[in-house]
C-alpha cells in the first residue's frame, strides 16, 4: 500500500520524501492541473529537479494534468504531457479523454492513472477508460466503503483512494458550483472558489465572507472563520440556517485503514498541494506510521491517539469526518 503525498513546491516535495512518502504528486505552473494557485507548482526546470530528487531517493513522481483542455489552447495540455514525460515523471494523472488518448499513443510506456476529476464511480465507467490503458483509478470521494469494496472486488485494476485532507463532497470533475458563482471551475480553470473572488468584511465584530459578492458565511466573534469554499457555507433552507451542503471539515480515513488494506487498495492519497511544507511533513509522518503499522500486523491495528491529535490539528475547523465512506454521512 503506497503513501502518495502532495507537493506544491520543492520544499514540500522534500518534506514528503524525508518523512516517508512512497510517491509524490505535483502539478505544473499553469491551468493544466486542478490546483492552479498563485505561487504554487512547478515550472519545467523545477519539474526536472523534482524528478531527480524523488528518483535519487528511490521514490516515484506523479504529475497531475487533470483539467480539461480548452479548444484554442489544446497544445498546452499536450505540451504538459510532453514536459512531464521528458522530465522523467513516473506517472501521469489524467482526466480529459483527449489528453488520455494522446498520452497513451505518444508515451505508451509511461504509466497513466485516471484522475479523480474523470469522475469514475462505477465498474462501467472504469471499463470505458481502459481503452486508454490506464493502470490505476483514483476514486471520487462520493463512494461508501461498501461501494469501494464492491469495486475493489469486481474490477481488475489498481485503486487509489483519498485518505486525508479537504473533502470534496460532490462527484469531482462534475461540479460546476464554482463557475456558477465565479466563472472559474476546477474543470476549466483548475480552481474551486478562487481566492481572487474572496472578500472579508467586519461588521461590528461579525465577520462576513463573500465569494464574488455572494455571502457564504457570517462568523460571530467567538467563531473560527474558515475559507469561503462555496459548498461549506452556512445558508438558509426553509426556516433553518446551517451548513446546507457540508461543514468545514476534513476527510480522515485512519479508522478505515485496516479495511482499505484488506481490500487491496493500492494507494492512499493525501490531499493538499496548496499546503505548506510543514503541513506535508506532519501529515506524511503520521500516515507513514499508520501504514507501516497496518502492514506489519493488520489484525492488531489500532489508531494511535497521538496520530488523531496531529491530524485534528491540521484539519479544517479542527474537525474530521469519514465522509461518504461512512454510510451515515450520506
Amino acid at each position, binding site marked *: 500500500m503506497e503513501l502518495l503525498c502532495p507537493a506544491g513546491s520543492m520544499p514540500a516535495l522534500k518534506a514528503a520524501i524525508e518523512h516517508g512518502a512512497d510517491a509524490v504528486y505535483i502539478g505544473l505552473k499553469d491551468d493544466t492541473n486542478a490546483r492552479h494557485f498563485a505561487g504554487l507548482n512547478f515550472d519545467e526546470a523545477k519539474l526536472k529537479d523534482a524528478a531527480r530528487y524523488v528518483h535519487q531517493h528511490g521514490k516515484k513522481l506523479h504529475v497531475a494534468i487533470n483539467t480539461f483542455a480548452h479548444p484554442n489552447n489544446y497544445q498546452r495540455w499536450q505540451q504538459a504531457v510532453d514536459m512531464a514525460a521528458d522530465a522523467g515523471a513516473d506517472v501521469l494523472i489524467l482526466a480529459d479523454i*483527449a489528453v488520455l488518448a494522446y498520452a497513451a499513443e505518444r508515451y505508451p510506456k509511461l504509466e497513466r492513472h485516471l484522475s479523480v476529476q474523470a469522475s469514475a464511480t*462505477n465498474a462501467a465507467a472504469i471499463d470505458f477508460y481502459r481503452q486508454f490503458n490506464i493502470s490505476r483509478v483514483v476514486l471520487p470521494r462520493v463512494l461508501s466503503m461498501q461501494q469501494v469494496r464492491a469495486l475493489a472486488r469486481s474490477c481488475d485494476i489498481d485503486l487509489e483512494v483519498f485518505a486525508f485532507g479537504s473533502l470534496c463532497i460532490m*462527484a469531482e*470533475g462534475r461540479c460546476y458550483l464554482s463557475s*456558477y458563482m465565479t466563472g472559474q471551475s476546477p*474543470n476549466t480553470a483548475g480552481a474551486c472558489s478562487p481566492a481572487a473572488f474572496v472578500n472579508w468584511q467586519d461588521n461590528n465584530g461579525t465577520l462576513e465572507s463573500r465569494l464574488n459578492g455572494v455571502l457564504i458565511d457570517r462568523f460571530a466573534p467567538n467563531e473560527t472563520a474558515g475559507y469561503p469554499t462555496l459548498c461549506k457555507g452556512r*445558508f438558509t433552507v426553509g426556516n433553518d440556517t446551517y451548513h446546507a451542503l457540508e461543514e468545514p471539515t476534513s476527510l480522515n480515513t485512519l479508522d478505515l485503514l485496516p479495511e482499505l488494506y484488506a481490500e487491496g487498495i493500492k494507494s492512499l492519497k493525501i490531499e493538499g498541494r496548496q499546503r505548506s511544507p510543514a503541513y506535508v511533513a506532519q501529515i506524511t509522518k503520521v500516515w507513514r506510521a499508520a501504514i507501516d503499522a497496518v502492514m506489519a500486523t493488520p489484525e492488531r491495528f489500532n489508531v494511535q491517539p497521538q496520530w488523531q491529535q496531529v491530524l485534528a490539528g491540521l484539519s479544517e475547523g479542527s474537525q474530521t469526518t469519514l465522509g461518504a465512506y461512512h454510510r451515515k454521512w450520506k
Partner: protein
Amino acid sequence: MQFSLGPVLYFWPKAQMLAFYREVADSDFDIVYLGETVCSKRRELKFDDYMAIAHMLREAGKQVCLSSMTLYESPGELRELRKYVDNGEFLVEANDVGAISMLQQQGLPFVAGAAINCYNQHTLRRLVSMGLTRWVMPVELSGQWLTEVLHQSIIADIRDCFRTEVFSFGHLPLAWSGRCFTARSENRSKDQCELCCINYPQGREVTSQDGTQVFVLNGIQTQSGQRYNLVNQLSTMQGQVDIVRLSPQLSGTFDWLAKFKANINGTAPQPLPATDSNGYWLNLAGMATG
C-alpha cells in the same frame, strides 16, 4: 433549430408525470428526453412506465430519447442502466461514461449529455468515433467556447456526423453528491430519506443569509439558484446550435417554449425576470446576467 424537452429532474408523483407527458404529447417540442437522471431510489415510474410514455410520445410525433443517470455507484444501478441501453428502440442519452461504455459495446449511437466532460474538439472527435450523434455541451461553457470547438479544422470532416444541443432554460444541474441534501435538510440520513424529495416538486431553495437565492437542492443534485434562460440568445445560436433544450419546470414550461419559438430570430425579445440568468452562455459567472 429544434426544441427539446429535457428529462424531469425533480421527483414528481406518477399521476403528475403522466399528466405532464400527456401535455407534452400535444406540445410543440420536437424532441423529448425521458428517464430518471438523479436518484435510483426514485421509482414512481419504472423502466416499463417510461417505455410506455416513450411509445405514446412517439405516436404523437415526438423524437424520444431515454436519459440515463449521472452518478452510478452500485452494481444494481448499472443493471438498471443496462435496461436503458438494451431498450431496442430509442436513442439513449449518456450522462456518465459508464453508459457510453455499454452503448459503445453494443455498437449503438448515443447522445452525450451535459455531464459528460467533453470540453474540446479532440475529445469530441473521439466520442463521435465511439458513436456520439448528439452533443449537449457542459452547462458551464459559453457560446464562444462552443464556436471555438466547432471551428477547429479537426472537426470539419465530421461536422455532419453529430448535432449540437444547449441546455437553455431551467435550473442548471451543477453538481451530484454521494450525500442527499434534501434528506439532510429534513435532518434525515440518505438511508432513511423516505423519498422526501417528492414533497419538493421544484426542489428546495437555498438562500444566503442576506436573502440571495444561491442554489436549489434536488436530492443528491445541486442546481443553480437562478433559472437559466437563453430566450434572448437564440439568434446568436443560429448556425451552431441545432437543438435548444428546455428543462421541465413545475409550471410555465410550455408558455416559455412559445416565447422561445417566437424569438428564434431575435424579433420578440423577452424581459428577463430578476430570478433568471444567462451568464454561462455569455462567458460570465453562471449566476450573472449580461
